[in-house]
C-alpha cells in the first residue's frame, strides 16, 4: 500500500471526486426543501425545483410586465458592463503603475508607500464619498471597483518586477538596453502573466464591490435584483441569481487562465 500522499486518482476518478461535494450539496438541498414543504406548503426558505423553473421562465424568457425588458439579461448586461469596464481600467492602471514602480527606483520611492496606504483603505468606507462626489450613476460604481482592486494589482505587478533576477537586468544593460528598452522589452513582457494572475485573484473582490454598489444605488443589475427581491423573501429568484453570478465569475476566471496559457506558454510552470 503506497503512502496516502502518493495516491493519485485516475482521471475519471478525479472527475467523480470533484463532482461529489456538488452532488452532496444538491442532495442536501432537495432533502431539506422536501421536508420543509411537507410540513408547510407555503414555506419560502427552500423552494422546490419546480419553483425555480417557473422563476427562470418569468425572468429569463418572458418580458417584465412593467418595463417590457427581460430582467435576467438586462441585469446580466448591466452588471457585466460595469465589471468589465472597471477591470479593464484596473488592469491598465495596474500594469502601468506596477511597471513604473517596479522598474524605476525613483518612482518606487515616490509611489510605493502611497499605493500601499491606498490598498489599506477599506473601499466600502469611501463608497459614500464616491456617491457624493460622482453621483449615483455608473461612474461611482465603476470607481468603487477600480478603487478596490487597482491598488492590489499595482502592488502585485510591481512585486513581480522586483523579483526579476538582478542578473537579467544587468545582462540587458550590457546588451545596450536603455531604460525604455529595458522596461518595454525585458520587464513588461514578463509582467503580463502576473497581471492575469492578479486579475484572477481580485475577481472575487471585484464582484463583491459591484454587488455592494448595485445594492445601494441602482435601477438594474444582478446585485440590485437580489437585494430588491429580498424584501419578498423570494429565494426562488435569489438562489438562481447567486448560481448565475458564480457561473459568470468562474467562466471569467477560466477565460483568464486559458488566455495566460495561450499567450504566455513560457510562463507555465512545468
Amino acid at each position: 500500500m503506497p503512502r496516502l500522499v502518493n495516491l493519485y486518482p485516475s482521471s475519471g476518478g478525479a472527475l467523480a471526486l470533484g463532482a461529489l461535494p456538488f452532488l452532496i450539496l444538491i442532495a442536501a438541498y432537495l432533502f431539506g426543501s422536501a421536508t420543509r414543504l411537507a410540513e408547510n406548503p407555503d414555506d419560502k426558505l427552500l423552494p422546490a425545483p419546480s419553483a425555480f423553473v417557473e422563476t427562470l421562465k418569468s425572468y429569463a424568457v418572458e418580458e417584465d410586465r412593467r418595463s417590457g425588458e427581460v430582467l435576467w439579461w438586462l441585469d446580466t448586461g448591466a452588471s457585466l458592463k460595469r465589471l468589465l469596464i472597471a477591470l479593464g481600467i484596473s488592469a491598465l492602471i495596474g500594469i502601468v503603475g506596477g511597471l513604473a514602480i517596479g522598474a524605476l527606483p525613483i518612482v518606487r520611492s515616490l509611489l510605493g508607500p502611497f499605493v500601499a496606504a491606498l490598498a489599506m483603505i477599506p473601499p466600502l468606507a469611501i463608497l459614500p464619498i464616491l456617491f457624493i462626489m460622482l453621483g449615483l450613476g455608473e461612474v461611482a460604481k465603476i470607481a468603487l471597483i477600480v478603487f478596490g482592486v487597482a491598488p492590489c494589482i499595482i502592488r502585485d505587478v510591481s512585486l513581480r518586477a522586483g523579483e526579476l533576477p538582478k542578473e537579467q537586468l544587468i545582462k540587458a544593460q550590457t546588451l545596450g538596453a536603455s531604460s525604455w528598452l529595458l522596461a518595454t522589452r525585458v520587464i513588461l513582457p514578463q509582467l503580463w502573466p502576473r497581471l492575469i494572475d492578479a486579475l484572477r485573484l481580485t475577481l472575487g473582490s471585484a464582484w463583491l464591490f459591484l454587488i455592494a454598489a448595485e445594492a445601494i444605488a441602482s435601477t438594474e443589475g444582478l446585485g440590485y435584483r437580489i437585494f430588491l427581491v429580498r424584501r419578498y423573501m423570494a429565494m426562488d429568484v435569489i438562489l438562481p441569481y447567486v448560481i448565475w453570478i458564480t457561473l459568470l465569475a468562474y467562466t471569467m476566471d477560466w477565460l483568464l487562465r486559458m488566455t495566460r496559457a495561450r499567450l504566455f506558454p513560457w510562463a507555465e510552470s512545468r
Partner: protein
Amino acid sequence: MASVTVKHLWKEYGSQVVLENLNLHVADREFVTIIGASGCGKTTFLRMLLGVEQPTKGQLLIDGEPVPAEPGPDRGIVFQRYSLFPHLSVLDNLMLGLEFSGSRWLGKLFGARRRVALEKAESLLEAIGLHTARDKYPSQLSGGMQQRLSIAQSVIREPKILLLDEPFGALDPGITADMHEIILRLWQANRMTIFMITHDLKESFQLGTRLLVFDKRRNDPHEPERYGATVTYDIPLNRKKHSMPLASLTAALAGP
C-alpha cells in the same frame, strides 16, 4: 582594444575590507583566469569592472579611462545562472542585443535590417550547436545549452571585455570540454579581453593566458574582516608550450 589597469584599488563594505591594494595591468586580448577562496572578493572585482559596484579607493581603468558607473555594451557578462530572458525564444534571446542597438524605441528590427541580424544570430547559433533549438524557450534547455546561449548572447554585440563569473560552475564536468572549445573560439574570433572566475584549477590553466590568484596576505584571526584579499600570484600561462606542468604549479600554490 581593451587593456585594464588597476591602481591601488580598495573595496570595503562598511567595516569589512574585501579587496586591498590591488595593482594590475592586463594587456589587450589577454585571457585572465581568476581563482581564490570563496568569499574573497572575486565577484566583487568583476562587478566593479562591470560598473555595478564602485571602488572605495584607487583607480580602475579601461584603456586609461575610469570604468563607467553603469553596465554598457563594451563589457559583456555571463553569470552562473539567470542571465537568459525566459520570455524569449533561443533565437530572440540572441537577437536581443542586435535589436537594442538597431532600434532605439521599439527594440525590434524589420525588413532588410532584420535579415542581416538574423543571419548573424543564426551563424552564431550554428557555432554553439543550438540551431535545432532555435524556437525553444530557455526553460526547455539543459543547463549546458543555457550557458552556451548565454555566452553567445554576450558576444553578439562584440564587447571589448568579456566577464565570466563561474560560467560552468553549475555544469556537469563531462560537458565542460565543449564549453571550453566554444569560449576559446569566440575569444579568438572576437578579439576580446576576457576575465573568467573559476573554482576549477585545471580549467584556469587550460583556458587562460594569465592566472590570478586572489588571497589575503594578512589575516587577523580575531578580526577576519580587517584585511582584504589581493592578487597573491600572477602567473603567465603559455598555453602552447605548457612550460610548467600542472602538478608542480599546484604544489607551488599550496606552498605558503
